[in-house]
């Protein structure tokens, strides 16, 4: 398949997905993007895909930039720009459209917003756990990887440690052969 067609397909896919990712942030698109990029089209290996998220997590800025890295891996600068725009422009336009209303009337407090929030809280938690599961199963780290992930989760949950330290410790554990 032609490279531009590939990129267009991924961009369209991401634009639709980012409009669906409600309640839990952009990491929710990860399982679908993995399926599209690694399983269906073999543009990235499983390990590369998991590494892209880890890199974005280690960099400053929003984690959504992991899709930027996937675009970069597929088609360099053009890929990075197209994929990033596809992931943020549709949802940002929606926010702008609704924002006029929100800034004028306030919002998010009524009965319907309350019910929506009640529904989204458990769904976001479950979908995030599902995304974590996806990363873990593609990272190729086996049972030791699962132990490391659970330890990192416990540390991040119980302490106020900057996540960057946990990422660094994970890299160290990998480098010395623990994972």
């Amino acid at each position, binding site marked *: 398949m032609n490279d531009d067609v590939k990129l267009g397909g991924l961009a369209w896919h991401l634009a639709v997905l980012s409009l669906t990712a409600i309640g839990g942030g952009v990491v929710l698109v990860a399982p679908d993007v993995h399926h599209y990029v690694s399983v269906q089209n073999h543009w990235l290996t499983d390990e590369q895909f998991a590494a892209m998220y880890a890199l974005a997590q280690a960099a400053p800025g929003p984690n959504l930039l992991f899709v*930027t890295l996937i675009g970069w891996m597929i088609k360099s600068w053009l890929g990075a720009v197209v994929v990033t725009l596809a992931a943020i422009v549709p949802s940002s336009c929606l926010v702008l459209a609704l924002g006029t209303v929100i800034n004028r009337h306030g919002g998010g407090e009524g009965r319907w917003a309350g019910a929506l929030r009640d529904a989204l809280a458990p769904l976001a938690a479950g979908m995030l756990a599902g995304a974590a599961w996806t990363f873990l199963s593609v990272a190729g780290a086996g049972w030791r990887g699962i132990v490391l992930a659970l330890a990192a989760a416990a540390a991040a949950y119980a302490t106020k440690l900057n996540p960057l330290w946990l990422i660094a410790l994970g890299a160290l554990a990998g480098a010395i052969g623990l994972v």
Partner: protein
Amino acid sequence: MQDARVGCWALFKVFSHMAMQGFGGVLPFAYRHLVERTQWLTAAEFGQLLSIAQLLPGPTICNLSVMVGQRYAGAAGGFSALAGLLLGPFFIVIALGAAYQELAHHPLFVSAMRGMAAAASGLILATALKLAVGMLRSSAAKPAAATGEVGLDVGRTLFWRRVVQVALLMAAFVGLGVAKVGLITVVATLVPIGFLLFAFVWRKP
């Protein structure tokens, strides 16, 4: 609330500043910059905008930047804030990606990345855990006024709300992570179910 002194350039600068500091998540820095330093928002406004940003599709922090930018300088302000948030980190991740491609064949680097990826998935899991625990705690709190016959009703509603919450959580996990039916299917099925149940059957007492 509309402040003429806050223009597109100021929005761009403040948002790029917080983004470049935001190792491991931008939100804590967003609070520091928007509420404490610039005082563009009060703590209550920040909380309200954040909860709307989470309800809307797309990355939460991007939605927040667009809403804040728009409040001060219209659509151009929204895009200025968003550009500030993304531009610097964009080049940093590209640099990291290029380094990754250079080092990709080095065995030590590959195993370090494997450990990093496992830790990163642990961080996602921790966020899920925080959301789940916060949700169960808030649904456990019984209104003080509810006593006697009314209290029994309230208790029953709260019980069923928790059952539904746990069921939705499990269904979302299995659907997205294990059965891999895709985000669109999960959202299009479970959001309406949850919304209808919480709006009409077990409303917050």
